[in-house]
């Protein structure tokens, strides 16, 4: 029997029950959220069970929702079972005041730089990461630029000396 979203969902609810919430299927991809202290348990379960076998980490990134109090930062994992060719999406919410999420580097070597990138841009503190430092931005940067409180420059601003930028 091919692996389907329904099977994955029932296996997960059977194991974790109410820990997993927010079940959706946008554009056919099973999406759900886990409490952040359980992200590794869920990832491990998805990895270890032979009938699930989500052993390929496609993508790891974050999204910032400044209006959601207590769960401003959302870490998104895209997992892929290459044999059954099924993708799922796991979300973990963390408050911006204490953005600690357990690292997935123990399971996936690929998570190393992806988590560094997520830390670099959103400040998610991946607990247990072997080398959590900035990867694309300069080390001296003291803010997390992809957060929504840092807007892009106003394109109509006129207070800048444009001659310095060759646009005068």
């Amino acid at each position, binding site marked *: 029997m091919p692996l389907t979203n329904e099977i994955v969902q029932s296996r997960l609810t059977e194991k974790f029950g109410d820990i997993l919430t927010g079940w959706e299927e946008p*554009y056919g991809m099973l999406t759900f959220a886990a409490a952040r202290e359980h992200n590794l348990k869920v990832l491990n379960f998805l990895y270890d069970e032979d009938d699930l076998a989500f052993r390929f980490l496609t993508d790891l990134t974050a999204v910032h929702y400044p209006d959601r109090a207590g769960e401003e930062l959302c870490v998104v994992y*895209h997992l892929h079972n290459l044999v059954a060719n099924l993708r799922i999406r796991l979300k973990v919410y963390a408050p911006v005041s204490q953005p600690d999420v357990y690292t997935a580097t123990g399971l996936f070597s690929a998570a190393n730089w992806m988590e560094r990138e997520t830390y670099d841009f959103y400040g998610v503190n991946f607990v247990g990461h072997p080398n959590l430092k900035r990867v694309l*931005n300069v080390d001296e940067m003291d803010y997390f630029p992809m957060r929504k409180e840092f807007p892009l420059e106003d394109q109509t601003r006129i207070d800048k000396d444009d001659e310095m930028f060759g646009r005068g």
Partner: protein
Amino acid sequence: MSDHNHIKLPEGSIGKTTTTLNLGPTHPATHGVFQNILELDGERIVKAEATVGYIHRAFEKIAERRPLYQITTLTDRLNYCSSPINNMGWHLTVEKMLGIKTPKRVDYLRVIVMELARITDHLICTSIVGVDAGAFTGFLYVMQYRELVYEIYEEICGARLTTNMGRVGGFERNFSAAAWEKLERFLKEYPKAQKELEALLVRNRIFYERTRGTGAISAERALNYGFTGPNLRATGVDYDVRVHEPYSSYEDFEFQIPVGTTGDNHDRFIVRTEEIWQSLSIIEQAYRKIQSFKGAEAEVYHADVPEYYLPAKEDVYTKMEALIWHFKIVMGETDIPPAEVYQAVEGGNGELGYYLISDGGRSPYRLHFRRPCFIYYQAYEEIVKGSMLSDAVITMSSLNLIAGEMDA
């Protein structure tokens, strides 16, 4: 920002017995702006540390203010050796989000463009591996055909490297007669140049000895590191997005996925070489399919999506609706429906993914590019550990590291 005391000797650097070598950020052997801090014992690499980010341009942030059609230009600059694949991947993402169904002819035109891009991407990579092993000539044989492909791009979209090709729903114009003529020339003449390159390198003793067994990674480690594309297939895993999740009507084509066994530099080279032949065959099939369209169908080059596809200029001057659509599109005043979508395409280097979240505004709420290069480059430290410095250089080029894609 901390104070700028950049020049300081690392702890224990006086008494240590290994040499630290900065390979990059601007070293001719790196073919791009990224740095490797190598710890060398003689010529052998004890430890490597890769640093990226030298051409980071904050595309994901910029995209959060742009209307959808202006993001195409950002995707050009990811893997700039195969920009059209990035462009098409972005259009496919938007079309998936909006539920736009493109006509078959558009799909086949896209397949032609994407496979041409794959060939240029692979021919650069394979011939540069030759250059790094000391054989410059083969590079020139195939390079003149990349020039021809760039001329085809010019005929299609007017640009060569950063193509900004196609629109949401299709292409901005139909392929010109000159484009088809050049494509025919490419299909006829390129195999000869490719054979010449292969004759130079494939059974060449020096090349063989330099690439065989160096830079190897096992299938298990490659999967754990998130490898995709030719680098993963060289280890023996037949994962290809074109087959696993066909997009743009790839299911209509007959082709094979070449795989290697050892995942070393030689296998990566051979896999890419073989993929070039498969791509040529796909282009020929697509060309035949396009020729079989008759009547009005043979002129279709875009889907009917007035909200996102710019109307013809003569209509803008004469018709009210067209004028309104034109204004709304150009000013970026089209509201995007709320959505969360992931679309992957098989890029030159592997699975190029677009993760797009819209909250109903006029630009994406969040757009993330899954750049294959960024993800597999982190394995470089493990791959080159214990190898010779000269092998590390070949490994770098056979992995096809493109700085634009790594840094986004």
